[in-house]
């Protein structure tokens, strides 16, 4: 009390804006780039999706015409359907297989390092390389089919990439082969972070191992699952290079995906308006999934 009186100026709490001033100044360029490139670019794209821009952008508004055409285009509808099927199947399988492999490796087996390396190695390859490798493996004249046939099974048929009904399976095989290893490693890290005492406690209580995993370990690994989920989902939405390398959308249009539609209309078809409308729809789809999730996370934190 006496100290306050002795001071000449009254003591005010520091202004919030100027707290950690230097770090805020340092962040300005990144904030500007973020706003300019991401937000600005997004707004620009949405605005131009309402124009009839062809090869070069121009502000000639046509209302929702591009969107009407988009949703009456068969190729776009097929693309959406393909992405949904690929997305759901690959999400379920990567998570399940990733966790299963991690749990098996976590059972203190011999040569764990070797297995871990084998499973993780495909992830070191790009989707383009993965796609080309599997394109060759699945080629009926050179790949698995011809090898099995030459071993004495002349009626063996396995050519998913040349069959409209099976082509997504071909893509999934390659996608899972490439992506599961990473999820396995993340899950393994999660399993390793579980306290050894918990295992001892469940053993004392006589709970079987599989039950321990389901009712104790998995709930404890929730943050790990969320991380893995975000990684896998973002990979699914931007699916493009794998398709280009393996099938380039074929046979016919049976393995087209939205990102490829956007690229093709923007650049080869010289129709910017249509391409922007398609990419805006992709953004909306992602937002529909992301916003409820972000909202839930936010509410949890506040509670």
């Amino acid at each position, binding site marked *: 009390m006496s100290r306050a009186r002795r001071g000449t100026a009254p003591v005010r709490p520091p202004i919030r804006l100027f707290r950690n001033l230097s770090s805020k100044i340092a962040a300005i360029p990144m904030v500007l780039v973020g706003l300019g490139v991401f937000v600005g670019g997004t707004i620009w794209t949405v605005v131009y999706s309402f124009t009839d821009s*062809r090869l070069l952008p121009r502000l000639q508004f046509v209302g929702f015409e591009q969107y009407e055409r988009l949703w009456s285009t068969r190729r776009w509808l097929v693309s959406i359907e393909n992405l949904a099927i690929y997305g759901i199947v690959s999400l379920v399988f990567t998570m399940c297989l990733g966790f299963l492999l991690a749990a098996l490796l976590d059972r203190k087996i011999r040569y764990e390092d070797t297995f871990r390396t084998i499973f993780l190695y495909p992830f070191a390859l790009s989707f383009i390389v993965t796609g080309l490798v599997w394109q060759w493996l699945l080629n009926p004249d050179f790949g698995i089919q011809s090898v099995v046939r030459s071993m004495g099974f002349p009626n063996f048929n396995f050519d998913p990439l040349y069959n409209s009904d099976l082509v997504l399976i071909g893509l999934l095989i390659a996608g899972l082969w490439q992506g599961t290893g990473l999820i396995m490693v993340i899950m393994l890290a999660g399993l390793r972070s579980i306290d050894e005492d918990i295992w001892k406690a469940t053993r004392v209580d006589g709970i079987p191992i599989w039950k321990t995993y389901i009712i104790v370990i998995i709930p404890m690994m929730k943050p790990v699952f969320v991380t893995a989920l975000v990684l896998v989902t973002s990979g699914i939405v931007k699916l493009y290079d794998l398709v280009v390398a393996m099938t380039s959308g074929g046979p*016919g249009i049976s393995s087209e995906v939205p990102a490829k539609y956007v690229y093709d209309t923007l650049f080869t*078809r010289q129709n910017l308006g249509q391409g922007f409308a398609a990419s805006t729809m992709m953004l909306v789809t992602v937002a529909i999934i992301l916003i409820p999730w972000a909202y839930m996370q936010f509410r949890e934190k506040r509670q």
Partner: protein
Amino acid sequence: MKKTLSLLATTSLISAGSAAVAVDLEVTHWWTSGGEAAAVAEFARLFNENTEHTWVDGAIAGAGGTARPIMIGRITGGDPMGATQFNHGRQAEELVEAGLMLDLTDLAEEEGWRDIVNPPSLLDSCTLDGRIYCVPINIHSWQWLWLSHQAYEEAGVDVPTNWDEFVAAAPALQEAGKIPLAMGGQPWQQNGAFGVMAIALAGIEAWEAVNVDQNAEVAAGPEFARVFEAAAEARALSARSNVQDWNQATNMLITGQAGGQIMGDWAQGEFQVAGLVAGEDYSCLPGLGVNEIISTGGDAFYFPKVSDPEVEAAQFELASLMLSQEAQVAFNLRKGSLPVRGDVDLEAANDCMKRGLEILASGNILPDANQTLSPDTQGQIEDMMTEFWSDQNYTAEEAQRLYAEIIARAD
């Protein structure tokens, strides 16, 4: 030491003596298959020999669909190359409108391009508001059915001379374990083959009504119904040809695994590289042997505007060289395409090229769909065609209905 010095002195003198400054001119194109690469190397050789400039080859692998976005991106992004390939027609239309291309009109008038380019419609495709913006360098026609003599010999039937005989001979080929019609799985090939069948089977008038006047009624009419039925038939004949690229499909003919292929005359370059002789090892039927006609699509070179006057001078020199008689002969013989001027001597041309030249001289010509339809419309048709060709259950009626819809919407 003395020798080196004098050598340096002479070279510097020579370069100082010449008026223009040597420029490294980057030329982008998508010619990467064996025959194509050999052809473009002729341009490079002549350019390096006849001028003091240097040809910097900017080949972009992966066909036009991959290459064009890269080229357009570089031009609109302010990093223009010295010269770039496009197909005749509407692909570079907006770039010219935006003033990004060098105006070649003065050079064209000086050298009299109007008089030497044959057919003149090629130059029209390069013209916008009376100004000329590109150099047509060759005529590529889609209208060919290529036939492998080896395949027909092994199957024990005569080589067909028209489409009906081709269809009739198909069962014999299938019995011999061969694929009657080789077809790459890429949309542009399937769409191109359909275009050839349309001209041959629906007739020129109907084709022009749809592709030039964009008449949707004709597209939905009986002439085109016949084409779609024939296409469905061709689809059955091409089943099991599990290749993607056109040159892989041509290779099936070269090795005798397949009977025929509907493909443009660029396929000829592949036969040539493989050492096959036209008329003996393979034969060609223009217009499927029904309607002898040449469509005058092809390649042209555009010269993006640059600020450096020295580069611009080199661009004019290259433009002039590409139309010269010497370059026209050297390039087109390798490429298997027809020259754009009627006054060159193609003694060395093979049977198929000579047939093409005769048809060209007789004036049986049509524009190429690339010249009449926008890339957007072409793309929509390709989407529809590739689905039709790869799905045996897709009916001809359904395909025709969608086709007419796209034509009605075309711009």
